[in-house]
């Protein structure tokens, strides 16, 4: 029987856990140290389990990008200095700008893990008017599809007008911020 820690393969395992990844139920044995680290970063670890498969699925799509990611050299956040390589190791980003700096690779990770790339939940009160409008737009678009499906064309036309109005205001916002 193997008495060593599954993680570091060095220390003797004293903590035994049932690990669930996807639909697979498996047993893992860890040393105190590794177990503690797992506990700390449970959420990060859950995400990290996804990373290799997501990154390998990038292969052939954008070869340069994959190479960058694999060498971890070129992808570094200009604001905080965190590299994509760091993220791959820790599962943690360094700052809000990392989301933008790593957006190509991160987008796939997020889609894979979250099965979505669009926030539809709470919006902070002070967030820009734009966020509120975008959310409203999203609701209206769903509403529009529904009305069309129900063959309520008059109602659909009214919704479409509302959508246009919001789009105009959003475009104005963009121009405004471009000027700054």
């Amino acid at each position, binding site marked *: 029987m193997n008495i060593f820690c599954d993680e570091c393969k060095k220390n003797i395992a004293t903590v035994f856990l049932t690990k669930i990844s996807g639909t697979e139920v498996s047993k893992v044995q860890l040393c105190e140290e590794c177990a503690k680290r797992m*506990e700390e970063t449970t*959420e990060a670890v859950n*995400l990290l389990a996804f990373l290799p498969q997501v990154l390998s699925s990038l292969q052939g799509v954008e070869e340069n990008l994959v190479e960058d990611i694999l060498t971890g050299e070129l992808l570094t956040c200009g604001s905080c200095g965190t590299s994509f390589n760091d993220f791959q190791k820790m599962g943690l980003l360094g700052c809000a700008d990392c989301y933008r700096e790593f957006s190509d690779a991160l987008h796939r990770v997020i889609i894979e893990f979250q099965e*979505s790339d669009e*926030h539809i939940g709470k*919006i902070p*009160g002070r967030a820009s008017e734009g966020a509120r409008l975008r959310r409203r737009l999203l609701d209206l678009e769903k509403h529009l599809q529904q009305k069309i499906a129900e063959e309520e064309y008059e109602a659909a036309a009214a919704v479409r007008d509302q959508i246009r109005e919001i789009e105009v205001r959003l475009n104005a916002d963009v121009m405004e911020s471009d000027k700054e």
Partner: protein
Amino acid sequence: MTRNNRAASVADWLGTEGPGYPLVLSSRARLARNLEGVHFPCSAGEEDLERARGMVLEAVSKRVADDRDWDIRFAEELSRDELGMMTEEHLTSRSFADRMGGRAVALSWKDGRSVTVNEEDHVRIQVIMPGAQFMEAWREADKIDSCMEEEVQYSFDQELGYLTSCPSNVGTGLRVSAMLHLPALVSTGEIARTISALGQAGVYVRGLYGEGSGVVGNMFQISNRQTLGRTEEFIVRSMDTVVNQVADNERTARKMMLRESELGLADGVYRSLGIVERARKMGFFEALELISQVKLGIEMDLIPMDDFSILEVGVEVGETHLRERLGNDAEKEDVERERAVHLRRMLAL
């Protein structure tokens, strides 16, 4: 308020019964937030951490902590024991006990509300309630969040929502979890099927404590996996549905055990009771297993004993809580002896 004032009793919510008792032990809602313009804690320098702490704690004291007794603690000022006790009481996560600079927690002991500063994210708002009260717990956390937001500007992206240091929390930053006691699902082996169904429903399952051939004490924590692309209400309501389903499965498994072998079941729980009554020393994980079995016996009217709170007793037999009773120079063996004695005391045996 010093730690000693409340040493006699653990966090109040632990001993309380809620909806779904005795299968659903507790509900937890947690919101992850970060401050705009400050690096996430893992890459922030000491100065940034201090600044973030100042901003968050000011928001807490101004907007949140005015109603009931909130307690603010800096991690570096707490002793190892105090940190350990807080971890055992599920008030803070284990990583909080690392005492890294700039960490702090503001908590309201009475009702299980807390705001942790500079763990994985600048702000972690947490509300724990007894039983299945996911909507209530989330509303309470949301209220704290909205109050804090009047003082601080959170890092928020129009497409991705609240930005968190781990992308697994991005969007709503909301993680809802339930703690469940599922001894019959484990002993009938049905748990594997339940877990795989939950996995497909986008729900995480993990043991609250781990050991031996699986999860220890038959206590499971389940939480939502996705935090993005769903509204908070949807996440909360889904968790409620899932938890009810799991609790139903456990009830069915209990009936099945009773039908198939009442004698076998009774034998099992009484053997556990026998060990609790006679043991001279006991390990933590062993204690959790025994507590689970005795509790099952009580709930199924097989053992005529007063009911007890499995979470509260579980916390009481934890390493740090026992050490506090014994004093700091206690040896491992002293702790194990005290665990056996204290468990009998807790169960009035």
